[in-house]
């Protein structure tokens, strides 16, 4: 196994009106190549901050972060953002081809790749539509296709399904499992849904309440390929509940702090 991501004692401190605010504290994580790691934690635990540091959008206040590229030419990482970060002024096709266009891939080639991914996420009929013509689930499919089409070595997902209703979410979870199992990219997946993390992940890292840091982790034993059917298995429920018992403490602590 080769190490793909290594984070050591990462901290992030923001200046705020009530003095410095610590969003992430001494967080360490190692991710193997081809591993699907889910990070679960109560809201405000700094998991999105960690992902933004991984994605190069934020610099850590202290600590070290290393991503190990295999191929210098391919993009190293791309983020699938929370909610709707696809560009309203671009068509579905141009959104999906965005990363390729930024990298200077010739027009014909990037359109072919984009069309291919649009088909894979089931939006073939909507290639020329603008995002405001799409439903929430379709928009998030575009966002996922944009990342996959750019073909990065690492996919960083920041609660990509968080804003969707439960039914759409279930469908997209199934699609995400299928897409990922076909590519086996290294994934760091942020979510607050335990079931989602058990269904998708190889390993689940739990974070503490604010300021967030590593609490514990679980290996997910289920074999692949997986499908949404897995959620009906008793072992699935047992693991989910075990994780919930750990997480509950942190969630309650978060709520106490807020009140």
């Amino acid at each position: 196994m080769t190490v793909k991501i290594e984070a050591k004692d990462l901290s992030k401190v923001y200046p705020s009106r009530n003095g410095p605010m610590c969003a992430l504290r001494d967080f360490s994580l190692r991710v193997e190549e081809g591993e699907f790691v889910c990070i679960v934690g109560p809201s405000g635990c700094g998991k999105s901050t960690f992902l933004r540091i991984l994605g190069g959008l934020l610099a850590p206040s202290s600590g070290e972060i290393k991503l190990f590229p295999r191929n210098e030419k391919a993009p190293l990482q791309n983020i699938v953002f929370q909610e709707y970060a696809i560009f309203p002024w671009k068509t579905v096709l141009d959104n999906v081809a965005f990363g390729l266009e930024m990298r200077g891939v010739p027009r014909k080639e990037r359109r072919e790749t984009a069309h291919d991914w649009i088909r894979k996420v089931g939006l073939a009929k909507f290639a020329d539509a603008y995002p405001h013509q799409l439903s929430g689930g379709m928009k998030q499919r575009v966002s996922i296709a944009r990342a996959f089409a750019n073909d990065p070595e690492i996919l960083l997902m920041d609660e990509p399904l968080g804003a969707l209703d439960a039914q759409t979410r279930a469908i997209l979870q199934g699609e995400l499992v299928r897409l990922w199992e076909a590519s086996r990219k290294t994934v760091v997946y942020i979510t607050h849904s335990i079931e989602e993390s058990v269904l998708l992940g190889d390993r689940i890292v739990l974070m503490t309440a604010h300021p967030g840091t590593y609490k514990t982790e679980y290996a997910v034993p289920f074999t692949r390929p997986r499908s949404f059917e897995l959620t009906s298995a008793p072992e699935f429920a047992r693991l989910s509940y075990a994780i919930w018992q750990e997480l509950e403490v942190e969630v309650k602590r978060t709520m106490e702090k807020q009140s």
Partner: protein
Amino acid sequence: MNRSCWHIDSNTRDRLLSIGFPLLLLALWETAVRLQWLDGRFFPAPTAVAVALWELTVKGELLGKLWLLPGLIAAGDLSGARKVFAEGHLWVSLFRIFSGFFVGAVPGIILGVVMGMNRTIRVALDPVVSAVYVLPKIAILPLVMLVFGIGEVSKIVIVAIASFFLVLINTTVGVRDIEPIFLEAGKNYGANHRQMFRHIIIPAALPIIFSGLRLSLGTSLIVIIAAEFVAANYGLGYLIWFSWQTLLTENMFAGLVVIMILGALFTSGLQALERRLMPWQREELPTLVSADGADMGGTGAKA
């Protein structure tokens, strides 16, 4: 009674109302003047205004002596041809509005993008911009004339100043308020400065930039009319002012009608340009049905 012959669909009804009611008002006005309920010297009847408008056109006051053009061009007298336009009130005002608008709006957009992107520059310039912005631009016309003289330049400059600040403020806000997630997405997918600008900053701010352009074109019209009231020998503002002074109220109203038409044309012209430049904002959308059937709610069209 047969009800079906009274049934009109709501679109047709709206259209009939929106055309019919103004026509009714005009008819009332006309009648009131004819019956001498209204003093025709102060409120000339719509037909009298129409006649005045026609007279102004055929005498070459409004559009210049256009019938001289073919001869002048054939004779190669270009400065003579230019003079034809320079003597038409409408062309004179339009030239002042558009050259001033252009001279003001272009730097307004450029500086606005810079101020929107760069917090330091924004904080430094904001008090100055806000202070000058609240000043009614027509109030500095005397100052502008002091600097640029009483000729054409000062009229273009005053329109440019008015447009500049409106476009600047709107562009700054438009760029400053771009959702950070769009900038993050651009950065994460490797956009360089030029690509950020072209693919994210400009399209994201374009709707607000356009509302600045719309406001400033409207303001340009106001400013130029006011400037022409006091300091011009041609232009629609001069036409209105001169007609008032000589009690040619029909001509005064004719000038007002021309300005109304101009305002309407500006608005619809900008709207057409907006639809062309921002196809993603189009209102009339086909209703789309979700591909998976699981989330059919809330797709697409605003009904």
